[in-house]
């Protein structure tokens, strides 16, 4: 080795040593924090706006919240692999199907809490008390008022009408939002009719865009006239620009109501700080409920909590009262229906 490459190697080693040292110190810092004060550890796939809410919880209770983010499925596998040694106390997900699956896989322990029972409606929580919905998100019909008269709109099913050919913008089948919407169709009509409805949508050649925000922007730009998205994406866009031209239409108001999903949480089966975990859930369902829901323009699961003014402006509506756990039970069927119907 010549002198130059020797210096290079030495330099590289020095830099790395510095970084490793930094990393190790960082690690010990977090380890130390774990030892002393009261903590609750959260695995969460909901990360939008959780930090200020957790900070408020810490201020009010003295319990520190440490959280690690990730996608629903990855965090569930991590929980499963860690088993009894898991540091996680709470599993928080943004889709009922994932909570249902975690419950069925034995990753969540039942919580017998009067506070949660009294504040979260029965259809928004697990019958076995393993998980609880905390916020509601409604997937409904969005339209451009310049090109669509709301009188033309009625139900998800009616979007199969050929007059919507080339005018629909929807989310691809890979997303759980699409899947749980189809599950609600299966619950309402049975699998055969649900497949017919999906085929009807596909026949109208919808534009598929894998981002609700982008779907709304496409609608505003004129790529389509009617779309299906979660309501809070419009809430966000309106917050940034009150003139954003898209309107909400609440679907299926004359029958079962608009399709809603939840974000929610459960206490893990091997939670090292179980009491704190239950406290966090109860707090999120009551004192922290309005903030938690409003941080993402979602509707509170607790009917006593106030919703964000922007989404209150979308008007009163009736939501499908189906138990949210059904979306998990029916999800695989719905994906098969989507695949068979050619909805990609």
């Amino acid at each position, binding site marked *: *080795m*010549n002198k130059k*490459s020797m210096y*290079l190697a030495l330099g*590289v080693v020095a*830099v*790395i040593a510095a*970084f*490793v040292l*930094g*990393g190790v110190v*960082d*690690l010990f810092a*977090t380890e130390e924090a774990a030892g002393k004060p009261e903590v609750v*550890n959260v695995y969460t796939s909901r990360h*939008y706006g959780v930090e200020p809410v957790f900070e408020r919880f810490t201020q009010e209770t003295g319990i520190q919240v*440490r*959280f*690690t*983010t*990730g*996608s629903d*499925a*990855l*965090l569930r*596998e*991590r929980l499963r*692999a*860690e*088993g*009894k*040694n*898991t*540091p996680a106390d709470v599993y928080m997900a943004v889709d009922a199907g994932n909570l249902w699956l975690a419950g069925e896989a034995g990753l969540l322990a039942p919580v017998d809490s009067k506070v949660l029972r009294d504040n979260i409606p029965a259809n928004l929580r697990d019958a076995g008390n393993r998980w609880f919905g905390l916020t509601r998100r409604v997937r409904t019909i969005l339209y451009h008022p310049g090109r669509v008269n709301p009188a033309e709109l009625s139900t998800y099913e009616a979007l199969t009408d050929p007059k919507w050919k080339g005018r629909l913008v929807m989310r*691809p*089948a*890979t997303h*759980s939002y699409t*899947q749980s919407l189809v599950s609600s169709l299966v619950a309402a009509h049975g699998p055969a009719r649900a497949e017919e409805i999906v085929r009807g949508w596909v026949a109208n050649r919808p534009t*598929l*865009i*894998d*981002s*609700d*925000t*982008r779907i709304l*922007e*496409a609608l*505003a*730009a*004129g*790529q389509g006239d009617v779309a299906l998205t979660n309501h809070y*994406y419009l809430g966000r866009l309106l917050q940034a620009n009150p003139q954003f031209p898209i309107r909400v239409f609440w679907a299926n108001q004359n029958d079962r109501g608009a399709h809603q999903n939840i974000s929610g949480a459960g206490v893990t089966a091997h939670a090292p700080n179980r009491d704190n975990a239950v406290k966090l859930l109860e707090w999120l369902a009551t004192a922290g409920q309005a903030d938690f829901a409003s941080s993402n323009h979602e509707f509170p699961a607790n009917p006593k909590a106030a919703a964000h003014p922007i989404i209150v402006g979308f008007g009163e509506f009736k939501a499908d009262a189906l138990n949210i756990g059904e979306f998990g039970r029916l*999800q*695989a069927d719905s*994906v*098969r229906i989507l*695949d*068979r119907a050619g909805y*990609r």
Partner: protein
Amino acid sequence: MTEKTLIMQGVRDKRPSLLSSLPFFVVALTLLPVLVVASSLLTPTWSVWQHLWDTILPELLLNTAMLLLGVGIGTLLLGTALAWLVTAYEFPGKKTFEWLLVLPMAMPAYIMGFVYVAIFDFAGPVQTVLRSWGLERLVFWQIRSGFGAIMVMTLVLYPYVYLLAKAGFAEQSGSAMEAAKVLGSSKTRLFFQVVMPLARPSIVAGVSLALMEALADFATVRYFNFPTVADGILRVWHGLMDLGAASEMAGLLAIFALLLLLSEHRLRNRRAYHQVKGKNQGLPTMFLGGWRGGVAAGICSVVVFAAFGLPLTQLLVWGSRGIGQLTPGYLAVYVRLAGNSLSLAAIAAVVAVAIALLMASLTRLRGGTLSRLLTQLVTTGYALPGAVIAVGILLPLSALDRGINMLTAAWWGVTPGLIFTGSIVGLIYAYTVRFMAVAYNSVDSSLEKIPPNTILAARVLGASTLRLITQVQLPLIMPGILAGAILVFVDVMKELPITVMLRPLGYDTLAIWVWQMAAESLWTSVALPALVIVLAGLIPIKLLLSQGK
């Protein structure tokens, strides 16, 4: 038996030692996650396969084939041509372009995909402006298509070929070229019949890395509504909630990748690529003056603009809208995240390259078909979607942790908790497994060019294996090693699923931050950390490239 094998047999280290059994140990460790995934093939879920075959599988297979073909041809042409341009010619701005051309690699493909879609789709600025001028008929493209996916992935992945081809050219001796010139060979013939064949191991190594990356990608193809087999794996896992069936698909993908690698290797194995290179005897460069120089600089500019300048500009535009969020608190967060990302990437790069070097040179020195096959197997992990390999890594690591906890509980009555899952040790192990192909391909393709005579000479002079590696091989293949280190470094900076699964509680990286914001379509908040990823990747690239000469 060829002369090469005879020589290699002659110089083989026959003394049994700890060092010589090392490759098998390392191979076993790196192979474990892939085997965990592939073992699901032993218990196939027929109902899922039947459903897939009847519905989406044919389309997935066709799309995957098209993607591989498109990205393969695209990266081969772009990467090789650019590498040749900056190696063989002098033109205005060449020194700058030499490293600017590597930069697109620092751009995570999932960011690039989104940015391209955002710029060129219906609601994007290009079509909006065309519509406002009444020129919507000029819109000939459908960006959400296979074409869009292939184009974006080619732009992100060509640097793999470029970097390795450049190393391949740089390691060539000028004498073969001189000889050809003296014999009256034309420039075209010179390139295709002398330079290209000699650089072939490096170029092929680069293209196969690009192809494996394309095979494993599921995030980018989703933006373009172009589902491939990797996307199908995620569909089965998340949609049908069947991780077992998803692993089976991943196992098949690994076998497919392995077949590709092996067939390539068989083709390569029939030839020898040894080159003798003294000091300062690289390829001669030619000066391009006048308009020729302008054209050369122009080509480089167009590529750098399309693959880096344009997405960077869009990120800056979004970032400037989010500038209000940039409080000192946020800056502190970015600095911490950048520190975490950089340290993980640096450690992983060194570990992966060191192991790859040991493995590659020891298998070469020992020879044998079995060890060849095993080392080849190790690199298949790169063709699997990161999320799947992450599960394959998590399972053995958590079993290890459980075992440790059980033992310590039985012996001393204490449980240390999770040591490997949720620690930096586990993360580095996982990165090494995932990116072994990158390090190994880079190092091995360079090793291939060392003539056996050199090794023979060292052996005759009594050099031990360790000395042979550190004092003979290492200096000769420095360009390949540096290229490998850069590639691993940048890959780790961008890596997502493994970091998500295995990082310690509360320990975040830039890529995770970017992903969180991207998942929520908060593009103004994505821009800044994405820029930091790109900038952080830039420093080592610049540094290593200037040292590599």
